[in-house]
């Protein structure tokens, strides 16, 4: 399966990537900026995400509410999300709205226009978002918010990405404009169009609307590298609502696109690939210690700094945390000592290939087609400057050998490469066994 890719770089440095198909009269448009919550300013935790909200609050020619209104009333849907190393804004619309959507995205890339009232409003909205997803939910933020401060030492990787409320309160309009001028420049972004779009027409429209935007200074990026880790790290968090003790174990991953990385990703599938995965099979189905045991690498292609493969376990209160951890360690030890069979590796590769096709086709929810393809093309462009990787990267996984799986298991699944977070219920019904 080959994705046809058309692309160019505008004079202002904006990369444009177009992947046409004629399946449905629908086009997905995305703009990815190479800035996520990892490298947001110190003292402003949560700012990258708050800023993402501000991008829906109005730009010079499309004041507050117009952005959302224009997309919805064209028959489309829109959203944005903040990740570790990128922030995206995307729309799926009937293809007759392509030009309108490009105009909107260009307008907010060129001239964000927001005021104090918008900022106060979205600060309130973000706080309710944090409450509904984290503070008022059983296991809210577990482990994605609990793990970084335990696992990492560099502030970039270790801080609260949703933001401390005091930092959100401290964020000012000046911060908003500064962040915008620094990172939201065309030379730090990629524009994507997928689906029902004529490539020539798409390139012409991109030039028309984005061409006049001034390039900015290349943004400075702090170094997210971690100091060497020499021993296992552990942390504890209270669980306010849930009744089961939980733990998360994270191992730092190899750098993207190294030979270790390809093997590690398949090892991750061996450990976490659903009900056939070794972790679930041993802890939930066979030993029946855990109620849930899943997780893995969160966004295989979408990170550009220290990241982890994280296992998330909710276990029965009659087993202690140490007993549970010992059972998990035994799963890893088996791979380290015996490797995996050729049969298992072959199965993993078929499943991985099948999953990859679904990523290319599939959406986010039922109404955002080609989201996965957009995400891959964006990350391969911003991190690797090579969107064509979308058509070749699969080969690297299919070439992995059995011995390589065992080698990365030994090399990366070591105590001094991991961190563990225990999330323990304060609820009296859930006493842990001694």
């Amino acid at each position, binding site marked *: 399966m080959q994705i046809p890719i058309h692309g160019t770089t505008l004079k202002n440095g904006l990369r444009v990537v177009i992947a046409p198909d004629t399946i449905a009269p629908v086009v997905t448009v995305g703009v990815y900026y190479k800035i996520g919550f990892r490298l947001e300013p110190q003292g402003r935790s949560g700012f990258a995400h708050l800023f993402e909200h501000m991008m829906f609050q109005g730009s010079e020619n499309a*004041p507050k509410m117009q952005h959302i209104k224009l997309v919805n*009333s064209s028959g*489309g849907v829109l959203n944005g999300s903040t990740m570790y190393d990128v922030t995206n804004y995307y729309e799926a619309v009937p293809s007759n*709205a392509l030009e309108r959507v490009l105009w909107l995205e260009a307008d907010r890339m060129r001239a964000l226009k927001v005021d104090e009232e918008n900022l106060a*409003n979205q600060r309130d909205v973000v706080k309710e978002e944090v409450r509904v997803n984290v503070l008022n939910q059983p296991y809210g933020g577990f482990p994605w918010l609990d793990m970084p401060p335990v696992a990492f030492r560099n502030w970039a990787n270790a801080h609260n990405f949703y933001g401390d409320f005091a930092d959100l309160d401290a964020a000012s309009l000046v911060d908003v404009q500064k962040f915008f001028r620094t990172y939201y420049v065309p030379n730090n972004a990629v524009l994507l169009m997928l689906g029902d779009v004529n490539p020539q027409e798409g390139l012409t429209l991109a030039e028309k609307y984005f061409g006049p935007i001034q390039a900015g200074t290349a943004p400075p990026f702090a170094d997210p590298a971690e100091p060497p880790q020499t021993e296992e790290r552990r942390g504890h968090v209270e669980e306010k609502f849930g009744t089961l003790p939980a733990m998360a174990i994270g191992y730092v991953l190899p750098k993207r696109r190294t030979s270790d990385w390809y093997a590690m990703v398949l090892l991750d599938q061996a450990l976490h690939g659903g009900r056939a995965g070794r972790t679930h*099979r041993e802890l939930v189905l066979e030993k029946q210690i855990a109620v849930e045991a899943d997780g893995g690498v969160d966004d295989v292609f979408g990170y550009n700094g220290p990241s982890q493969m994280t296992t998330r376990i909710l276990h029965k209160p009659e087993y202690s945390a140490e007993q549970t951890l010992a059972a998990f360690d035994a799963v890893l030890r088996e791979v380290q000592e015996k490797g995996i069979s050729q049969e298992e590796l072959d199965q993993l590769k078929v499943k991985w290939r099948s999953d990859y096709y679904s990523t290319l086709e599939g959406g986010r929810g039922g109404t955002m087609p080609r989201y996965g393809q957009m995400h891959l093309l964006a990350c391969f462009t911003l991190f690797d400057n090579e969107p064509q990787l979308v058509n070749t990267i699969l080969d690297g996984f299919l070439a992995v050998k059995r011995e390589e799986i065992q080698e990365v298991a030994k090399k990366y699944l070591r105590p001094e490469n991991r961190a563990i977070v225990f999330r323990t219920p304060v609820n009296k019904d859930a006493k842990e066994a001694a």
Partner: protein
Amino acid sequence: MATRASEVAIAAPALTPERPVTWPKRTRTRLSNGMQVVLAEAHTIPKFHGELFFRAGEALISDRSVGLAELTATVLRTGTAKRTSRQIEEDLRRLGADLGASAGQDTSAISFAGLSEFAEPLLELVNELAREAAFPEAEFERERRQKLEEVKLERTSPGFLAGERLRKVLFGAHPYARVSPSEEQVAAYKREDLESVYREIYTPENALLVLVGDFDPQAMLRIIEKIFGNWEGKKPATKEAPAPPQLRGRRVYLVHNPGSVQTQILVGCRAITRKHPDWIRLGLTNSLYGGAFNSRLVMNIREDKGYTYSPRSGVTPLRQHGYFSVSAAVRNDVVAASLTEIFYELDKLRSLLVPAPELADAQNYLTGLFSMGLATQEGLLTQFSTTELHELPEDYLETYRDKVRALTSADLQATARKYFDSANLQIVVVGDRAQIEEQAALFGEVEVFDNQGKRIGA
């Protein structure tokens, strides 16, 4: 207060002429054993998506217990006459396939997706699960204990507690009132209960198989006949369910969730089934009220007032009844203010005609959204399944957009008056009683429950 009037975008490019929206041709047929089959091609990727539905679920067997159909679905994948649980999971991986089994009030279903090159062996496995599940004792026991932990856990989720309470209030003695079992009910499940549910519900005469993907329908039909053709079994007898209550006046149901730092609001009233002739107009009215980002409710309590992150309204269709509901997780000190706005926007739609441009925007939104499902195999599968399961007209998909566009502001007002029954809306709030009871009491008489569903006195 009304939503603040917004300025208008300057010079937004006009929409260009629309490209035609064409739904793929369906092959619809029925095997001699009564199994209904719907096939459609979609060559996006070298895969296919499918779902084998059975037209019965919890509601049919609710006189026995709650959640039995769901556990039956869970356990059926853990062993057949020919394969163990582990073999099933590894075979799925070998075929590059995903598979899930679940049950709702009105249907039980095995859903799956896999590589086209392995379509036949995957369908053979699905067939085995549908006909020869063995319900091994040890697997049943493990899943039952697992379920026990899940039912404890779900009582800590505000969204679950709100939904459970609203369903109890709206449906009373009707089976739709019961969304999840108690710990005692789970403890009393027997393996034999599951087997009898399985024998009763999983029959070809009760089945609908929908497949969408990269295949040739004629060749696929031959494979289906070969695999499923010799299966026999009648559909289960239907039973008359008790009528849901007639609800008069607003009442407030407060579920006390100690330590809650936010309040989950859920209000609702009974509405209609998917087959009802008013379905499309209610869908459009809902979309304009709170079903879209650009809707009145979202613009009011999120974008203008910042009370909440994720307000929304929706219409839920079940086979015998349906209901309309509005939800928002809000700051504890704005529970009364949020409810006020929720009712204000409902009543506004009942009393004032929707301006023509706003109507056109909402019509565009719904008709555009409808096309998104065309782009993926899963999207197509959902649309075809909905059409069949709710017994909608054969041209439902092809005529939907025109029907939406034909609606007028007067139609919407009449629909709001008929279904947004604000005077008799039932109000559920889940949160810390001490912080919200006074606010909630402004809207009706309050009954308080704990998170186990038991009533607490004043």
